[in-house]
């Protein structure tokens, strides 16, 4: 936050937007709404966890139960060691893809967003429109040519189709999102820095990256979540079970005549845990951001 001291008071960011406005509503109402909303939004997850503790017979009975009649924790070890699965390995694969993809997404989308938000050059609008256009064509019809492209590159059944493209801008949505945030940062800042002799790379790194932390953290969170639960990418590109990801591995429980819903829910619950922890940690980080600025 080296730029923090240089910025004018009006730019103090990461403040609590609606805080004062809502004060008169009363903290009790806020908590009531938060708790009611939390219960509603937790409902799918509660059902998932509850189902993961039901016996196979209980799942296959009518009418379905909400909470297990009898708690059946054996689903967890049974699912983890199901035939032809290798969940430790698939966890490692998934983590590897996350680790190899995340820096690419955050760095390159932020760089591109800076270019689109702050630099004037011929073709800027056209390229920005092309970036957006890339997500307007339904992906079902580009799937086969893209697959053939990766086939020709010899990348099938490797993680490369899932990792490498992320290093080329990190996705249109992320570029667009960060561009919006960067356009919001007052220009007086970079102009002052340019007078001081800073180049654009310095301005980007010293001013824009720190000031857009909530947006960057959001991009990172959504990227990790996207990879963690990505099903269609691995489905098409990874064929050998050694290379499966967790989301793909979940499908091993869907058989021809028999779907092991109990196991799907158990592994899903295990998959959700790290994501919940990540969200909790990241939220604390963002919340802390504006709490400290509030002390200034």
């Amino acid at each position, binding site marked *: 936050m080296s730029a923090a001291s240089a910025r004018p008071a009006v730019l103090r960011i990461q403040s609590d937007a609606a805080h004062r406005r809502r004060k008169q509503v009363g903290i009790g109402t806020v908590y009531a709404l938060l708790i009611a909303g939390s219960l509603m939004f937790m409902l799918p997850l509660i059902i998932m966890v509850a189902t993961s503790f039901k016996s196979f017979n209980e799942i296959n009975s009518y009418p379905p139960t909400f909470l297990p009649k009898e708690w059946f924790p054996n689903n967890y070890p049974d699912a983890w060691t199901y*035939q032809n699965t290798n969940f430790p390995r698939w966890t490692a694969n998934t983590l590897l893809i996350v680790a190899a993809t995340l820096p690419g997404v955050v760095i390159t989308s932020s760089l591109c967003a800076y270019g689109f938000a702050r630099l004037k050059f011929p073709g800027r609008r056209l390229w920005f429109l092309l970036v957006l256009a890339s997500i307007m064509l339904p992906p079902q019809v580009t799937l086969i040519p893209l*697959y053939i492209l990766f*086939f020709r590159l010899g990348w099938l059944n490797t993680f490369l189709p899932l990792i490498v493209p992320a290093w080329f801008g990190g996705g249109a949505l992320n570029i667009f999102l960060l561009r919006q945030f960067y356009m919001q940062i007052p220009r007086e800042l970079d102009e002052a820095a340019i007078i001081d002799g800073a180049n654009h790379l310095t301005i980007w790194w010293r001013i824009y990256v720190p000031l857009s932390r909530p947006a960057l953290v959001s991009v990172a969170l959504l990227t990790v979540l996207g990879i963690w639960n990505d099903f269609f990418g691995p489905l098409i590109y990874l064929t050998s*079970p050694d290379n499966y990801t967790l989301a793909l591995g979940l499908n091993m429980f869907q058989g021809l005549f028999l779907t092991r819903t109990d196991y799907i829910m158990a592994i899903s619950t295990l998959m959700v845990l790290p994501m919940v922890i990540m969200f909790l940690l990241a939220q604390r980080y963002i919340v802390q951001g504006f709490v400290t600025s509030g002390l200034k």
Partner: protein
Amino acid sequence: MLKLKVLVVLILTFALMAIGAANAQEVTEIRFGTINDPAVERVNQLLVENFQALHPEIEVKVEYIPGADLVTTYTTQAAAGTLPDVIWLADLFVVPFAQGNIVYDMQPLAEGDTNFDLSDIYDNLLGLSRVNGEGLYMIPSSYDVVTMYYNKTMFETAGAPLPTPEWTWVDYTAACKTILDVTGNYCFANGGGLPTFEWWAWVVPFVAGHGGSLLAEDGTTVTLNSPETLAGFQAYVDMWTKDGIAQPLDFDAGGNCFVVGKCATAFFIPGLMSALRALEPQPFEWDVQVVPSHPQGKFTGMGTYGYAVSANAQNPELAWEFVKHLASADAQLAIASNYAGTPLLRSLREDPGITDLAAPPENITAFIENGENGILPTAFPGECGSLYAGQISQEIKDALEAAILGVSSVEDAMNMANENIQACLSS
């Protein structure tokens, strides 16, 4: 300048796309694409073991295809030519894959193989592996004819008579009405399978059973609205609209209606046995019986999966060695012992490996006795689709849904479908 840039962009793209092409190698491995299902796993192992015993020098690489969205994976691999040498296949893929030269015609290999007896496999079932009766594009896995499963406990609780081989659909309906009145449960499960590929296997037998057909014998005139065909559709739709014994289309039992014990019967292929037997302890008593008779006799559907040699196979003879073992007594009895199917070989008809299997089902031979009632999906000419996919299946399914929901009469709905399909066939 921008135009120039775009041009450079295009050239670069194509240059990259052109990089590298798969180069042929000596066969040192064989890729085997299959699905992960406990019921099928033993068969997979048998095929691999048998092949390894014959060819220890060749490595077998097993690739599991995730069950969900199998179609997308397969078609993409087919388009790019990256399918494994030996592939898992289902009936609905046979015709499009054969016509697109994705799978190999094994007929010459089967005929030239002195250790393989094609005539031992039931004819009607083999029809699912052929295109208009020609070629052999898949070795089916089991004698997968749709047979009646029934919840014995529910029948007895309701005081309804148990199904017999002599049953007609009139007897069936009467028993089901008793069950509905006493227990509030439905009879005909699966909502007619409308969202599935196999919907025809429930409906078309009703049409045939009333003397109707979807297509006239000339092979070009659609006969969805002939009096006999309409009578068949009407009898089918009556299970919802008149008698209320079929699982309503909007009734979600949270699983298979029969398996969860909310529907008294299910019409399904033998593989459902493995799902039912996975319930420990068994929540209700159940058994199987041959399908009831229509006015014109007994008719039912068929639907199976199997294995095929893909056109990518570097050495089709080698792949054939692998695939053909599926139709061996060894593999067939293994499938049966897992309750994943019943033998497709006539020579195993009375084999203790099937007749002596532990109950349930008590009456497992009903699957085989019922076998000859299995009919093939009507084959339509031209580019309008089939009963599995495309406009033809779409039109008939939509008409059936409208009739079952009471949005339209059977006659009106089928008149419209008939007109639309005929228009497509004639264009």
